[in-house]
């Protein structure tokens, strides 16, 4: 009763009606009147209804304005994202439905409070979330909140494969895979244009060369032309072929002959002195070869009116020869392409070079840089190894190293090389298998297929040469 009295008093007061002390008795009677009591009741009910309605409106507006973020999806990748009403503070939602989810290949699971599925189309998908709140009648219409779901395209579907311009004077084949005899072994080599180049119709910038030389020597060379240098495809070709040519010259053949005697002495007496003589020989002879190739690139640039750096390319090569006592490997390298020999029972890896990696991604050095030859580290770019026997000699460009070995620390780890070999033998996502046997008739087809492996973010040219 007192509440009602206060209520009416306030109502009157808001309308400038005061109930003086002299009228209190009459006021009480007024309130007790049946009709008046009913009217007051109606007023209170209407007020409550109005306030409830407003609260509902306010709440709907709040939910509408609430920023709701759901994880981005990607086409072709199974999707699973929490869509938890409680987390959004939506405990007052009594009914809901989604529209637009199904079309995107998704559905909502109320039990797990997740949106799941396999998105089929990319884009900024507008999902309509329709809901009713506590206080809304069953026949009232749904409130609609639009939620944007970003569905990324499948990158695999975005890469284009545009042919390179065959009329370009420095054009080279986009993909090459060869299998041949080399010395007493075989070589399987492939060089493929990366997706990043295929996507814009530019050229393969990697290159390789190999050859049997005089007196039992063989050579394998790999070069990786720099993406930023406009004629690096030519640079890597000149570097690789130039290196082979150099060692075929009469004077080089003669000089290499002297190694037999040196090695003989080294084997008779493995001391500091003989080791030093061999190192000196490798430094002088292979250093000269590297410098000649640098000069050749310089000449070509001058003749064609190019800057030397337009031909920027890395360069690695290994010369090897079988002696009665085992195999001798002589090597040189500039750039981020590793060379390694695996021993016969695959229990040991011998690295033939260290690789030039910069502080940030993509940083490396090129044979076209004159400072390479003046740098104090120049002498450390050479290698000499004598192994009783070997199973594989492997040279690769960073297009293989980056996805398969990732970081330098993995290179001396034999386990990583064993993994690499099992990858080659079919332990991979595509089950692409290369049977490394000399009488395998499908070896180039198998290898070419393997070379196309998918690795997100790794779409540089790939070159891999395996002697076995």
């Amino acid at each position, binding site marked *: 009763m007192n509440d009602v009295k206060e209520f009416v008093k306030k109502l009157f007061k808001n309308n400038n009606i005061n109930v003086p002390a002299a009228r209190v008795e009459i006021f009480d009677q007024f309130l007790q009147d049946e009709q008046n009591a009913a009217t007051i009741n109606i007023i209170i009910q209407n007020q409550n209804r109005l306030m409830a309605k407003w609260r509902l409106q306010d709440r709907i507006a709040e939910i509408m304005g609430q920023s709701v*973020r759901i*994880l*981005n999806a*990607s086409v072709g990748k199974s999707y699973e994202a929490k869509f938890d009403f409680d987390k959004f503070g939506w405990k007052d939602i009594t009914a809901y439905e989604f529209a637009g989810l199904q079309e995107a290949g998704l559905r909502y699971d109320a039990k797990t409070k997740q949106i799941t599925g396999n998105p089929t189309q*990319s*884009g*900024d998908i507008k999902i309509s979330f329709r809901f009713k709140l506590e206080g809304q009648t069953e026949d009232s219409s749904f409130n609609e909140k639009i939620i944007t779901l*970003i569905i*990324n*395209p499948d*990158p695999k579907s*975005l*890469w284009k494969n545009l042919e390179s311009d065959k009329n370009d004077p420095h054009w080279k084949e986009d993909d090459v895979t060869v299998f041949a005899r080399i010395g007493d072994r075989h070589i399987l080599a492939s060089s493929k244009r*990366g*997706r*990043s*180049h295929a*996507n*814009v119709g530019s050229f393969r*910038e990697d290159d390789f060369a190999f050859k049997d030389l005089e007196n039992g020597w063989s050579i394998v060379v790999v070069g990786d032309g*720099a*993406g*930023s*240098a406009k004629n690096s495809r030519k640079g890597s070709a000149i570097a690789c072929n130039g290196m082979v040519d150099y060692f075929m010259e009469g004077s080089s053949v003669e000089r290499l002959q002297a190694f037999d005697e040196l090695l003989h002495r080294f084997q008779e007496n493995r001391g500091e002195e003989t080791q030093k003589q061999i190192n000196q020989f490798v430094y002088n002879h292979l250093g000269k070869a590297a410098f000649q190739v640098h000069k050749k690139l310089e000449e070509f640039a001058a003749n064609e009116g190019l800057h030397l750096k337009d031909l*920027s390319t890395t360069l690695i090569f290994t010369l090897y020869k079988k002696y009665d006592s085992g195999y001798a490997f002589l090597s040189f390298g500039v750039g*981020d392409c590793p060379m390694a020999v695996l021993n016969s029972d695959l229990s040991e890896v011998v690295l033939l070079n260290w690789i030039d*990696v*910069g*502080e*940030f*991604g*993509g*940083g*490396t050095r*090129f044979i076209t840089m004159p400072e390479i030859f003046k740098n104090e580290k120049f002498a450390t770019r050479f290698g000499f190894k004598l192994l009783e026997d070997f199973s594989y000699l492997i040279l690769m460009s960073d297009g293989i190293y*980056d996805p398969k070995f*990732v*970081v*330098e*620390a993995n290179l001396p780890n034999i386990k990583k090389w064993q993994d690499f070999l099992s990858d080659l033998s079919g332990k991979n996502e595509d089950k692409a298998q290369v049977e490394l046997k000399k009488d395998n008739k499908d070896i180039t087809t198998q290898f070419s297929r393997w070379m196309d492996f998918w690795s*997100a*973010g790794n*779409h*540089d*040219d790939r070159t891999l040469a395996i002697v076995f």
Partner: protein
Amino acid sequence: MISSLRQNPQAIETAFISIITFDSVAKQVVPLTDLASFQMVDIKATGTTCLGDALKVVSTCIDNEVAKTTADQKGDWKPLVFIMTDGIPTDDWQSGLEEFKKRKTAYTVACAAGSGADSNLLKQITENVVSLDTADSQSIAKFFSWVSASIGVTSTKVEDAGKEVTGLGELPPPPSELNIVT
């Protein structure tokens, strides 16, 4: 901008984006996030222009979020930095610039949006300065679509180059709304 960038396969597989705003304070509103997971936030231009603070924040973010190559860690590509401002710095921007200069970026592009910004001042931060005559939403949108095209080109170039793009000449031609400040 972001949705067109998502259509670039190189970008969607390799690019990461971070957003730092600066008004009366500078703050990183989106940490370095891969493009596939990235979601845009609403940004409103308000208050003062603490560009110096922003340069300090971007420097710390580069230190903390951009990985350098080590024997056991693959380094990230050098970051690209885009600065857009519509006003004159209200703080000690030179001390921020000193910090920023110690960091290596593939390149930095500054955009003076509208008449309130000072492109000569931005020239001291980077060689690459562009300006917009008016800071309306249409011109700003044009700037950002050019930014995204630049990220697309550069993520390819930096990737297989081993050498960074250094000048505006190596980026896609800017739209007519953008004036190159020389």
